[in-house]
């Protein structure tokens, strides 16, 4: 698909021809949707499906130009790729060289990308630079707005990192993932990544060298796992606070954590969550201006890890004091027999005041709150399983 292809839906709706106030970008197991909101965030117009039948792991709009949209895509039967649009999804063009590992030397077994999982636009001073995280775990960079991608050999082919990353048998059910690629807004060379599993890592030189940041993080108890080994650490989601880039929050396999640099020791702040709910989950959202305000979506991580809402009662939990106390925020959500949950990329916020919060469920519902979680309502139902939700301000 190396030519301009007009989306059937866009032809019908004319989507992308007019700037909207806010757009929610929804990536699902069977395609992608753009939900255009009005200024009050009360009515939403669906534009989609784009790529019906493709698994879209992430759909991200470049905040630096406000128009370049990248979609990480694959189908069950074809190899992975990245699609690119510069007109808000009206037309799409495939990357000329999607993320792919270096070809192995003769006689050695090389890795191949199963899917691109995570997309991050780089620093504001580096227009057209993007990072991508894949499964199996790899880090990739594009310098031309997502048209061509090159691997970071420093991490992808380093024998120690390879050991920490494990194999396709390790990690999450649909493959271990490199995710949560964070660029420090004060320094384009300062990067963080999360590896599931494999820990948290930081680079101060644009990815030439890396160091681990796992001090203070717990590992699964009862198996004698060495807490000092990155391979036993499973960060689910890392978020840097826009209001204070020295503060990073983490939702982890074992709990919720906070890191205040220059310290290199994570502090578990999830222990103050109600015992019945626990602090296991996948997504985490930070307030765009207040570094003490965070929201999580806990899930049932007991026994066989059902990965459902605890007791069938979904709720967002929020803190306004950096994790000292948490408040249950479920007004408007179903009260009983509700077993969906929210994946690590499927919860996000907008930059408005009050902040809008959004999440997409494993059962294909898109929910939002216009008042920082006090009241929730559903924007869409009956979509495919939602993998990622992002928002972007337009116009």
């Amino acid at each position, binding site marked *: *698909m*190396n030519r301009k*292809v007009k989306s059937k839906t866009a032809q019908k709706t004319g989507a992308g021809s007019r700037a909207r106030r806010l757009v929610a970008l929804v990536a699902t197991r069977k395609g992608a949707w753009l939900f255009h909101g009005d200024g009050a965030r009360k009515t939403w117009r669906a534009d989609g499906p784009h790529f019906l039948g493709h698994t879209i792991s992430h759909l991200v709009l470049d905040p630096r130009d406000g128009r370049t949209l990248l979609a990480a895509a694959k*189908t*069950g*039967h*074809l*190899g992975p*790729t990245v699609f690119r649009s510069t007109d808000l999804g009206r037309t799409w063009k*495939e*990357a*000329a060289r*999607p993320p*792919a*590992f*270096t*070809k*192995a030397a003769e006689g050695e*077994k*090389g*890795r*191949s*990308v199963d899917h691109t999982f995570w997309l991050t636009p780089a620093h504001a001073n580096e227009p057209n630079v993007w990072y991508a995280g894949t499964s199996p775990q790899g880090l990739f960079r594009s310098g031309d707005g997502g048209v061509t991608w090159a691997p970071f050999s420093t991490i992808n082919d380093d024998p120690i990192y390879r050991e920490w990353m494990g194999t396709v048998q390790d990690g999450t059910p649909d493959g271990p993932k490199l995710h949560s690629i964070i660029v420090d807004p004060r320094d384009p060379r300062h990067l963080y990544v999360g590896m599931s599993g494999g820990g948290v890592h930081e680079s101060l030189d644009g990815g030439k060298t890396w160091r681990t940041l796992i001090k203070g993080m717990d590992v699964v108890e009862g198996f004698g796992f060495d807490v000092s080994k990155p391979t036993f650490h499973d960060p689910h989601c890392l978020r840097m606070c826009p209001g204070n880039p020295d503060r990073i929050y983490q939702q982890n396999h074992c709990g919720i954590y906070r890191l205040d640099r220059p310290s290199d020791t994570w502090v578990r702040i999830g222990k103050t969550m109600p015992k019945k709910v626990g602090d296991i989950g996948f997504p985490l959202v930070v307030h765009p201006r207040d570094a003490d305000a965070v929201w999580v979506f806990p899930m049932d991580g007991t026994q066989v890890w059902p990965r459902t809402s605890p007791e069938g009662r979904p709720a967002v939990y929020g803190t306004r004091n950096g994790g000292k106390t948490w408040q249950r925020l479920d007004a408007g959500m179903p009260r009983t027999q509700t077993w969906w949950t929210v994946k690590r990329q499927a919860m996000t916020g907008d930059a408005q005041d009050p902040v809008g919060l959004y999440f997409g469920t494993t059962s294909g519902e898109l929910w939002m709150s216009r008042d920082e979680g006090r009241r929730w309502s559903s924007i869409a139902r009956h979509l495919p399983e939602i993998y990622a939700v992002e928002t972007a301000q337009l116009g």
Partner: protein
Amino acid sequence: MKVLIPSALRSYTERAETEASGATLAAMLVDLDRQYPGIRFRMIDEQDRIRRHIRIFVNGDQVRDLAQPLAATDEVIIVQALSGG
């Protein structure tokens, strides 16, 4: 030679049947990618392995080796092995 394209890849070719040339299967796929950029990587990974759900038949016989010699009169059929839901 004649190459039959599965429906999942017709977004590249816009047809079910096309022509490509090459003395081997590998060379034929390079020629196919030259005509329809991006199509090869959806079928063949970066380690030159045929992807899990792709099957390639030459004159009715399944071929697993990209070094397989081809003649101009051969017919190549590319199939997606559907699975899952």
